[in-house]
């Protein structure tokens, strides 16, 4: 763990990534104290619509006279927590499925992996659209579940491949010879060894999920209003592009910074964990 952090710290880009991610998590956690206004309160519908950025409203205001800086800050809370929780879910499911397939082999493996192939063939957004269309008004918890449950396919493939390569190592055979059951074998002996690639995929996956969640919210099927979400703020901003271009601009910048942070951190982790590139 210490060695990992050191390897991470020795890469300039990974340092930037880590700093960005930590800063964003801090901003999101402290949003209630940092935000100058309430993100959903309509401050002054008569005179406060589409105010340009100023000292009073650094990011300006939107159609409902809401303070955009506060909305973007609270949006970070929403986007990051959705991304973190859904990736946690997808990593858990993906690891479980991958381990099961890799350890069981045979028909179980074949069925699980063909299912994964099929799911991967459907462009993600279409799959999500089908699900979201069928269960209307999923809410934030539902969205986390849907994003998590449609995102574990890659992880399961990676874990399965790792398990297959580890399965016949001597230490695994030794453990089996000592009478270790399959469950204990998976958790105690295999899990620590598949953790590295899973962590890398998860970190890169957080960035991707933020993009997908923003996309769904932009399409109006993600986080329901008036909860501020970066994607839905951009959608609202597009309606007023000529009048108030700042509404669509700032949340997009926030997304780019966040995703760049997770990409840099993920790449750095991969380099740190992969002995060949060190």
């Amino acid at each position: 763990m210490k060695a990992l952090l050191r390897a991470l710290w020795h890469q300039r880009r990974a340092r930037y990534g880590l700093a960005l991610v930590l800063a964003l998590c801090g901003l999101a956690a402290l949003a209630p104290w940092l935000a100058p206004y309430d993100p959903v309160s309509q401050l002054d519908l008569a005179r406060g619509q589409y105010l340009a950025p100023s000292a009073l409203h650094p990011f300006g205001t939107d159609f409902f006279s809401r303070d955009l800086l506060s909305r973007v800050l609270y949006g970070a809370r929403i986007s990051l927590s959705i991304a973190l929780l859904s990736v946690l879910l997808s990593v858990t499911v993906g690891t479980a499925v991958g381990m099961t397939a890799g350890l069981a082999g045979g028909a179980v493996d074949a069925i699980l992996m063909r299912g994964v192939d099929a799911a991967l063939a459907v462009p993600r957004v279409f799959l999500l659209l089908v699900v979201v269309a069928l269960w209307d008004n999923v809410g934030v918890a539902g969205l986390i579940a849907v994003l998590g449950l449609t995102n574990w396919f890659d992880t399961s493939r990676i874990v399965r491949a790792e398990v297959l390569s580890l399965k016949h190592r001597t230490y695994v055979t030794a453990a089996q010879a000592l009478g270790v059951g399959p469950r204990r074998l998976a958790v105690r002996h295999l899990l620590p060894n598949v953790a590295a690639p899973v962590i890398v995929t998860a970190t890169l996956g957080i960035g991707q999920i933020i993009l997908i969640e923003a996309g769904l919210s932009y399409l109006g099927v993600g986080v329901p209003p008036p909860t501020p979400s970066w994607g839905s703020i951009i959608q609202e901003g597009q309606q007023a592009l000529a009048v108030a271009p700042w509404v669509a601009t700032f949340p997009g910048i926030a997304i780019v910074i966040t995703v760049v942070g997770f990409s840099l951190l993920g790449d750095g982790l991969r380099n740190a964990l992969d002995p060949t590139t060190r």
Partner: protein
Amino acid sequence: MIVFLVATLTFVLLHVAPGDPFTRASAATLVPQEVIQQQRRNFGLDRPIYVQYGRYLANLVRGDFGYSFREHRPAAAAIAERIPNTLLLAAVALVIAFALGVFVGAVQATRRGSAADDLLSLLSLTLYSMPVFWLGVMLLLLFGVALDWFPVGGVVDDTVYPYLSPLGRLWDRLQHLFLPAVTLGAVGAAVTARYQRAAMLDVVGQDFVRTARAKGLRERAVFFKHALRNALLPVITLFGLSFPLLLSGSVLVETVFAWPGIGKLAVDAIHGRDYAVVTAVAIIAAIMVVVGNLLADLLYRVVDPRTREAQ
């Protein structure tokens, strides 16, 4: 096979989801129960699940994707009308993505570690981390609203298009195509450039490139005939993999630019609760992905003689 599995997946999703198209009507209680039961019978929703599944598959094979309640015509007809638009947009974006991406990635690899390489890496990382719809909105803001160089949406300008000369019509179409295609292509180009750069760096370190240099070949010939050609292989794999990404992106880009393709159709269908269209588009998208993978396999054979001999 994949398409069959996808069809099964959507069928399962359809039936796991709460209620059927008529539950909403029963909740309203404006429609008498007998009518709802009659409608369920008409659409075969009262039959056992395996009968419904069999019929569903049989219908799909015949190209019947169900009935669009919103457009009052078969879903297949609505989709057929929109597919050319999506294919046009996707094809142009794909050309932009790979032409630009391969070029930029190769240039970066030849100037490894230079300021230009760093700058381009940063640019592609930023583009890669950018929501494609936001890029579209920003281009729209800059070129459509602020500068007014390009139209802000649609395929053609509906008011003047019928009166334009053939050349004028083509120009109008190109103008409308430009921003969406660049938006979708730019993100793809960023991904391709990252791959191409890595692949080139992988190849230029290998023995046959050194041999080519040692033979006294000019740098240009080494670059194009030896290095680039071999570095294209992983990029072709990416080509096959990029279809799902491209189609997902086109849903968003079509929505930004009001481009009447199947992505926009699917989004409109969701807001209109038109399930047949949503599921049909998902299945069509899966078919397009499968076709894309086949194309990638064929391209492999063109570029890599070894796969040809393996046949």
